[in-house]
């Protein structure tokens, strides 16, 4: 079994640059996409083990992508970690209701993000 893969969907270059680097450093095979439609294409090509998914993406919202992942049989094992800068409680509930495994509100400490990724992927590693 090879390295676990992480797909990072984030349109903001600043944070994407840092996160891509940090996640890769954790030992995951990391790709970054900046557009909702490109996310779908990336999922089509090679389903990752986990998606770090921003809610606000051009063309397709993170919610829609998450919902789509959950209803696609082929993608049902993909873990979804959603994040947003809109900090309302109801956004978190919507994200979780649509099938996200975890939800982070920006700004967050990157250590929290990598810990979440480890927790979501590590469980499967043990199984």
């Amino acid at each position, binding site marked *: 079994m090879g390295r676990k893969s992480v797909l990072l969907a984030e349109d903001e270059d600043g944070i994407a640059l840092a996160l891509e680097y940090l996640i890769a450093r954790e030992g995951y095979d990391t790709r970054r996409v900046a557009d909702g439609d490109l996310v779908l294409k990336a999922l089509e090509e090679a389903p990752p083990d986990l998606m770090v998914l921003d809610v606000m993406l051009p063309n397709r919202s993170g919610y829609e992508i998450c919902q*789509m992942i959950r209803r696609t049989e082929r993608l049902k094992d993909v873990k979804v970690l959603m994040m947003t800068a809109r900090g*309302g409680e109801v956004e978190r509930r919507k994200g979780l209701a649509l099938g996200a495994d975890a939800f982070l509100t920006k700004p967050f400490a990157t250590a929290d993000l990598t810990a979440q990724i480890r927790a979501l992927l590590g469980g499967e590693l043990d199984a």
Partner: protein
Amino acid sequence: MHERLGLRTRFALFFAALALGGLAILILGLWLGHARAGGPTDGFVIAGAVAGFGLAGLAAWIGLLFDQNVARPILALAADLATRARADIDVDIDEAPARYLGALAPAANAINDALAETRAAQDRAVAEKTALLNRDKAMFEALLRDLAEGVVVATPDHRIMLYNRAAQGLLGDLGLDRRLTTFLRPEPLAHALDRMGARAARGEIEAERFLAATACGERFLVARVSPIAVNGSRVGYVMIFHDATEDLDAHAERDHLFNTLLEAIRRPTAAIGALIDAIEADPDLCTDRRTSLFRQLRREQGALVVKVHEIAERHGTATARRWPMPAVASDDIFDALQARLPEDLRVEGARQFIRCDGFAITELLARVIGGLRSDPARCDFVLRAGACDREICLMLDWKGPELPDGQLDRWLAAPLSKGYGHYTGRDALEGHGTEMWSEATATGNRLMLPLQATRAPVLTPTDPRPEFYDFTLPQPVSDEIAERPLSELRFVVFDTETTGLSPRAGDEIVQIGGVPIVNGRILRGEAFDMLVNPGRHIPAASTAVHGIDNARVAAAPDIVEAGRRFHAYCEGAVLVAHNAAFDMAFLKLKEDRIGLRFDQPALCTVLLAAALYPDADDLTLDALATRFGVTLTNEHRHTALGDALATAEVFRHMLGVLEGAGIGTLGEAISRSDRMHRIRKAQNY
């Protein structure tokens, strides 16, 4: 009576005179004939007797006919006409008895008909006008009563002529003819009225705005006053206001949050910038120095994260608390949806209450249901409202294909309704601070829309205040109160229930009831009704009288609190009670503890009745009620308020009789009462 005798007598006298005159002429003629011609007297006498009796009989007969057919019908006709002039009688005058009076009877009937016609027209006009006035009045009352803003109309000396329910809610227990300045800090009001006066003098007719505080200083009101002038003279002012306490608080809170946010961001942002500058400035920085700079950078950024979350949370609670939307029943929204989209749409479950813009939410759901139905594979739509977390979720279930969030987003991006301009569904969701999504269920899919829960709106109890305005309050008089007519005074008729009959031997008040009389009207809606904790045991014998036992007064205020409230209630009024000395003794004994003096003028219905009816031996409330024809319902008797109301009824009737008996002013009423008091005292000893 005189007239009728007069006319008939005159007719009788006329015919009597005719007969007598005829007789005289006859006698004169016979005498002349005998004197000239001579001859035997007998012939002349016989002729004279026959002609004389005949003449007298003829006169009497014609006289009777005249009485029967002319005098009596004329009198009857006159009486009929007179009655019809005074009272509304809708029956024609009987023409048969007056048939010999020619066209008089028909003419009288024509007048009668014309009169009846005029009267009917007048009645119709009055009825129409009254109906119109009543309609205006009902509209005016409904408008004022349910207006969300407080409205008070007062005389120039601040006595209240009108108030509405909202005003009562904001200012406390308002009452007609009570001073507005009792409920409101007087200075800002006086100042605003001065400015209003100056403005009016300059010819500007705009309302004057000001910030007012309630008497206790607890609430702030944003108020507008404008003058009311009738024929150029100022008769009062109208004040319209709303509660600004929460607005001001929320505004202050938001300002504070914003300032905190700015400061919380500025400081670390500046520090982070400076730290990065420092790191970049020297690429060959020694490791220690570098580490400490980076550590500080991390610390600043950490502080920024904490602050942002903290402020987001405070903002969340601040906006959640202040939710300017009405409570709406989920049924109402669902009913509207069913009416618009009747096919295949059911409603299940219990009614819930939510805070929302009912119209916007209905439009939003209608849009979604319409969109979902465009795919005929979806069916079995069910609406439901249920609790989820601390909110209420409006849920729409259906069988068939799910709803992609992107599709939902596109529906939400369109303007909600023509009536709302560019306002989109997304705007509506943000306005409600919520989101909408669909999720899969065991049988199909479900759309979720969480909204803020609220309790069922408290139905305003049927407010018994039918008398919330009186525009005919007596003119302000600067005279000594004793000189003022009784009809112009504000009375508070009251009664107390006690633990016993001896205030000086430790008996205490257990209940106070009172009701104002203003302008001859008993203001039942402004009644005062309060249980008082006597701080001692209530003997069973007393409980048997008034039904108040220890348990009922356990949580009631003591006499200090109740006395203060009652004192405020009676401010500027004349106290009235049946056997006032008894009730006043209880109050006066507590003056030191209450810290206020009950020095208002007081009238006693027993003494006043004694002055009016010196011979009456029964002056109980029931006897007086019978005397004035007042029916007292037994239901609430022997409660303080019930007896106060009964006394008020009796006193209101007494006011008219007092005036008739020459007791017109308060001073006269008091001096007559005092005299009665002395007489009764003398009689008792």
